[in-house]
């Protein structure tokens, strides 16, 4: 790119390339995934390409001569982001950034931008090369996946099911961290209130291990449920868990515990003054 005028050709007309500069321009214009632009040392746009036009909407004569802050959202310009980027690029030779950029029509897109400082042999800054890539689709896809994963995790993390009129069951599987136990507490309490259930069974058969903090959370949940006017029965306390609890000196005496879910369920039914009896023979 010898000068700005030559490099600002916008229509990629297939021609027989004659010189290196022209080949380079063909590359710049035909690359569809990137917009390649040159800036002068002050950040003024000096070349434009069809890639840039496709991505950002400006034609060459509309943008050449303008400061590259036109591509940035007003709040970033106000923060002095463009000056900062040029300074960092000049200092380190390059700068990579991911963030919002603005099109001609004002709409925004999520971009990956690489600014490269172009110096002559004696170190004088000739300008900056700016390569912009539209990552909107990737970002949207990522966002969608992240959201779905989050939803699935939240649902699966703390399922609360009503197993009987007046009894809710919370089968816990996997490690209980602080965030999950907080969710657990909220969901259990809300379900107990919604379903008007005096008994909540918390089954920890699927929990591999319990530490002091987890135990503390379970004790808190039990106390909170009690304030609502319901009881928690902690079931599925396996031998290994029982050993850990005693070795760690965790006092679970304020919580009703049972080794199996069926024992807990029987207890819950008793609390509701219900009894399971075998059907009469011949009925």
């Amino acid at each position, binding site marked *: 790119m010898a000068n700005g005028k030559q490099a600002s050709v916008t229509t990629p007309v297939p021609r027989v390339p004659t010189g290196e500069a022209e080949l380079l321009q063909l590359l710049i214009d035909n690359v569809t995934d990137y917009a390649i632009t040159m800036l002068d040392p002050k950040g003024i746009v000096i070349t434009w390409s069809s890639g840039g036009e496709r991505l950002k909407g400006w034609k060459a004569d509309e943008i050449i001569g303008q400061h590259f802050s036109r591509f940035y959202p007003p709040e970033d310009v106000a923060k002095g982001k463009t000056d900062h980027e040029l300074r960092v690029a000049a200092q380190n030779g390059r700068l990579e950034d991911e963030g919002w950029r603005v099109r001609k029509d004002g709409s925004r897109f999520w971009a990956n931008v690489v600014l490269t400082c172009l110096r002559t042999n004696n170190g004088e800054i000739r300008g900056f090369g700016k390569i912009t890539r539209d990552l909107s689709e990737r970002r949207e896809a990522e966002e969608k996946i992240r959201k779905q994963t989050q939803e699935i995790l939240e649902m699966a993390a703390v399922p609360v099911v009503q197993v009987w009129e007046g009894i809710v069951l919370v089968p816990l599987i996997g490690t209980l961290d602080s965030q999950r136990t907080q969710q657990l*507490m*909220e969901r259990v*309490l*809300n379900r*107990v*209130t919604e379903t*008007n*259930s*005096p008994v909540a069974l918390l089954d920890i058969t699927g929990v591999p291990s319990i530490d002091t903090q987890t135990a503390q959370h379970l004790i*808190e949940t039990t*106390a*909170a*449920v*009690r*304030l*609502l*006017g*319901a009881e928690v029965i902690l079931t599925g306390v396996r031998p290994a868990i029982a050993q850990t609890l005693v070795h760690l000196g965790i006092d679970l005496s304020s919580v009703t515990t049972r080794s199996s879910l069926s024992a807990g369920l029987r207890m819950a039914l008793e609390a509701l003054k219900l009894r399971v009896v075998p059907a009469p023979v011949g009925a």
Partner: protein
Amino acid sequence: MGPETLSVIKIKEILVVTLPSDPDDSTVAALQEKVLVEMERHQAKGVVLDVSAVETLDSFFARTVTETAQMIGVMGGRTIVVGMRPAVAITTTQIGLALGSIETALTVDRALDRVMLASSTTLESFQ
């Protein structure tokens, strides 16, 4: 929100007290006074404290309720706190307010059933 917003209703031998959504200290203090007087006047068997409207609960409130429950106990009645909101219950346990020993129920219905059942079995045992 003044003390006059406290409602005390007598149902059979039980007093049902409903608290406003954001009870201030004077309301809470008046609660103790009013409940104990009504307790004596009606010879009530128990007090049901409906807190389902209460959105914030502080240490003064917690202490007064616990104390009042003890006083009612001394006078021969039982106290049941009813309908606490999940969010309130979470805050209460997490900041460690002492309400631990108090009797609770999910709804006023359940609380009434419990008190009446207890008093009726006493009567039956005499027959």
